[in-house]
């Protein structure tokens, strides 16, 4: 018998601190699998952000830099400009990337900064205990929107892929999900494409991953997957929003 599935090398042996059923672990594994398959672990610096994934510096086996809240794309820019031939990625949540770090995200994209951003969108601030995120849905109940997110006071959710796809420097903007095996495989393909484009110096690559937060949504892991499909996917349709490597573009 041969092994058809095991822990990727680029993922450390440290167990994740994430809650049961949290899909951060799936996405970590996909990134590590891609680093293995493209043989990039030894050539990569990862940038961890602030939020639930803050400890991602413990989980990847490549060199890791921990950034201040929202600043990961700026930190990644510094790492990349110092080492233009190395591979640099950030791993950020929705609060980090689209609230406090919107400027850093937009400007890294518009510079065509040759980095890969893995963006976890689960419509909530996880680490601090379930507050409204910039991507929280209209009507979504969170700790800080106990009556549901109201447009009159909090406005609308912000769509990351659509936003960065408008910028010339963006080489890839794709939204994927990790709610089932098929989508997980597509998510991995998107992450692999992003890292490949980076090695080809195509520009800013951005993969948004729809994820779950069973604990702060107050749902079981199974119910969370369903909630993502029924509520998040209409607001955040899966698909390729920009692909400079695709034929015809």
């Amino acid at each position, binding site marked *: 018998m041969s092994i058809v599935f095991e822990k990727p090398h680029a993922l450390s042996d440290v167990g994740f601190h994430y809650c049961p059923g949290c899909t951060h672990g799936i996405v970590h594994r996909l990134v590590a699998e891609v680093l293995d398959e493209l043989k990039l672990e030894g*050539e990569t610096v990862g940038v961890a952000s602030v939020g639930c994934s803050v400890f991602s510096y413990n989980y990847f086996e490549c060199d*890791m830099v*921990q950034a201040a809240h929202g600043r990961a794309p700026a930190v990644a820019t*510094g790492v990349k400009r110092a*080492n233009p031939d190395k591979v640099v990625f950030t791993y950020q949540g929705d609060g980090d990337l689209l609230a406090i770090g919107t400027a850093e995200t937009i400007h890294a994209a518009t510079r065509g900064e040759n980095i890969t951003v893995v963006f976890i969108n689960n419509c909530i601030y996880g680490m601090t205990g379930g507050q409204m995120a910039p991507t929280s849905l209209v009507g979504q109940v969170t700790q800080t929107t106990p009556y549901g997110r109201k447009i009159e006071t909090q406005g609308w959710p912000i769509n990351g892929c659509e936003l960065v796809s408008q910028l010339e420097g963006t080489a890839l903007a794709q939204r994927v999900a990790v709610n089932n095996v098929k989508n997980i495989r597509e998510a991995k393909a998107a992450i692999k494409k992003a890292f490949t484009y980076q090695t080809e110096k195509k520009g800013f690559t951005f993969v948004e991953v729809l994820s779950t937060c069973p604990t702060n949504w107050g749902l079981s892991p199974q119910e969370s997957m369903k909630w993502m499909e029924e509520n998040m996917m209409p607001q955040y349709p899966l698909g390729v929003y920009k692909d400079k490597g695709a034929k015809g573009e």
Partner: protein
Amino acid sequence: MSEKVLMKGNEAIAEAAIRSGCKLFFGYPITPQTEVSAYMSKRMPQVDGLYLQAESEVAAINMVYGAASTGARAMTSSSSPGISLKQEGLSYIAGADLPCVIINIVRGGPGLGGIQPAQSDYFQATKGGGHGDYHLVVLAPSTIQECVDLTYKAFDIADEYRVPVMIMGDGMLGQMMEPVSFPEHDDSVTFDKSWACSTTGMKRKKNIVNSLYINPDELENLVWERQKRYDLITEKETRAESFFCDDADIVLVAYGTIARVAMNAVKKARAMGIKAGLIRPITLWPFPEKEIQKAAATAKSFLSVEMSTGQMVEDVKLAVNGKCPVEFYGRTGGVVPVPQEILDKIVEMSKKL
């Protein structure tokens, strides 16, 4: 020594940084330091270096954080309001033990304040600025030549002790032109960069650059370890110049631009028969307590002269430790005192002796 050239302070700092091996500069325009950025944007491409204009001061300091994480020499420059924005990044840089150099060409404040020379950010620079138990090493040049020499020194201190180092000047120093020479930089000195995130090459265990420690005992140990480095810096790197202090009754303390004006006043006082002296701190942190204490053993009073409402005077008082009175004279908001004002104060003090 190379031949002398006439340069602005801002440009001299930029050129000195490049000669110190800094190939990565991240800037954002703000008066009165924009010449640093402009010079870098012209010179960096000529030396295969990088000038990058960031989207904000916040982004610029975080780009420095990223570049410094790889072990490279990196720098940013700004002026007071911009330095306020960089405080978050500076705290993280200190917390992650990253070496880098920050230029602060101070202008009047608070708020948007003005664009004329000031020293009103002494507290911010020397007492922390951002959150947490940390210090910046703060160097205060008073001539354009010293801008060059201290920039060389700043990068070496940063690398040797793994700390951020600030060069604090003011708009007058930044804009003023003086002849300078650029000594050969000693590139033979190397520093340990085994901690850097420059990729593993699958040849070593991974490195992590980080300032997060959830376990309080672990965090405490690291903060005390850093404190020991600060103690070492205090012991080895504290610098000041003393003039006429051996027999001085009135010892002035002044740094940067205003130290030159104070020196003029001291000489005039001496000509009038008043035994005045001057201590010029070159490192604002660590503060030259020993020089002050030495002078305090014989002096009858001290005068802190600043372009602020009185900030360094607190450190002078701590160093003098009640041995004699410490007075203050200052102008602020971008107003630079003339020698006569300071002389008038010295004369007034001499009458109380």
